């Protein structure tokens, strides 16, 4: 895995926000700005969706993004494409090395399938996405497609298996993305308590933006 560092200084960031464990977050990043997502304590899933700020119907397209790079993992050099075929952002630095876009977001409903029927009433990423979207007003349920799970390690085997491996992230690992257009960033700092991939311990993550 190819790890790439950034020389950007946190003290020079124009915006910093710590997302507590299990919370939603929504902000805009302008074309040319750089967004850093920082895994503060390690192996925290940062479930993320991107939309064009000018036309929120234009959103991150996982299948086009994977097809165009001919690879199933996201890392430095990955261009995140939209459903209209336009670049939304490019990953410009990555000290973790691999991010998932096949595993989706946890939801009350999928938790009943994956774990047990009585897990329905636990907090979930879909609750966070909907809460942030509906308060913002520009996004709704139908805009929520497949997301990126930054810092999650979900290998696909040559036989077509999908496995959830222990994380390869750690405290202080980060990923940086440069915006190609004005984008809405929608994050759920994953509250999943049923999955060993985060050691059953959701932790905070930080968002930094540089001009």
């Amino acid at each position, binding site marked *: 895995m190819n790890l790439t560092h950034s020389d950007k200084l946190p003290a020079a960031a124009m915006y910093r926000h710590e997302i507590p464990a299990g919370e939603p977050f929504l902000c805009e990043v302008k074309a040319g700005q750089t967004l850093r997502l920082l895994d503060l304590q390690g192996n925290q899933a940062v479930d993320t969706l991107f939309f064009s700020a000018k036309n929120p*119907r234009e959103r991150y*397209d*996982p*299948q*086009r993004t*994977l*097809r165009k790079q*001919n*690879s*199933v*993992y996201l890392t430095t050099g990955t261009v995140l494409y939209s*459903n*209209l*075929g336009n670049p939304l952002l490019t990953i410009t630095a990555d000290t973790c090395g*691999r991010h998932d876009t*096949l*595993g*989706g*977001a946890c*939801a009350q*409903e*999928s938790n*009943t*399938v*994956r774990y*047990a*029927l009585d897990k329905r009433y636990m907090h979930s990423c*879909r609750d966070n996405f909907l809460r942030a979207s509906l308060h913002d007003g520009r996004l709704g*349920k*139908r*805009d929520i*497609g*497949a*997301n990126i799970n930054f810092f999650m390690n*979900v290998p*696909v*085997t*040559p036989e*077509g*298996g*999908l*496995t*959830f491996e222990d994380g390869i992230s750690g405290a202080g690992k980060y990923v940086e993305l440069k915006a190609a257009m004005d984008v809405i960033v929608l994050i759920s700092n994953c509250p999943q308590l049923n999955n060993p991939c985060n050691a059953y311990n959701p932790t905070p993550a930080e968002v930094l933006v540089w001009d």
Partner: protein
Amino acid sequence: MTAALSLRPTLYEELLPAGGHTSFVLKRGQLLRITDLEGDANVSLLLLNATEKSERLNLPDSLKCQHTAKLTAGHCLYSDMGRVLAAITADTCGWHDSFGGVLNAVEVEEKYGAGRYQELRNGFFRNGVDNLLVEMGKWDLNLQDLLMNLNLFSKVTVDSQGCFHFEAGNSKAGNYIELYAPMDTLVVLTALQHPMDPNPEYAPKPVQLSWHKIESDGISVLCRTSRAENDRGFHNTERQYL
């Protein structure tokens, strides 16, 4: 009629021509068989709850709860509400792809060159985005609903570095997949080449569609019991009909 056939009478049959697109409600208890007539077919597929169309096929949920990236017999296709829109009750092909997505008009022209209606009439070069959008538009759906789609009959593997490989020859003439609907499911599909198919010629293949009435949901036992997750998925599905 033989005993075997009487258990699943054929309701209707139709040829979906190469490049064609269609959509219909597969009613609860019905089964759709899609047959690759010539070999090397590809069918891009979306599924939705026919009565609440904001509930849609969720491929990530389908893949992660069954710990698979390929789809074949025994697997279920889940909605975002934890319900089974369709169960793959039979499959003679063995591998259906969840990575490739569909090409748009620009990407089709880049790959195959120009192929306009004006010169080619109904042989014009169609693209998966527009074909699926047109069908979805008929149900008052739009671009928001064009989520990750399945590509039936196609196989794409991932190597140890994470790179994709399109495996040619995955589907032979006569291969089929059967989708059983335990709820009323809106099916949207189009028969176009897989986006990663290296063939530089625009050459989509036709498929045969046949609808069957299933008298007993015993046909879903394989899917229901293949994993504990699927038993709960069927439970969620049946709760709609309390």
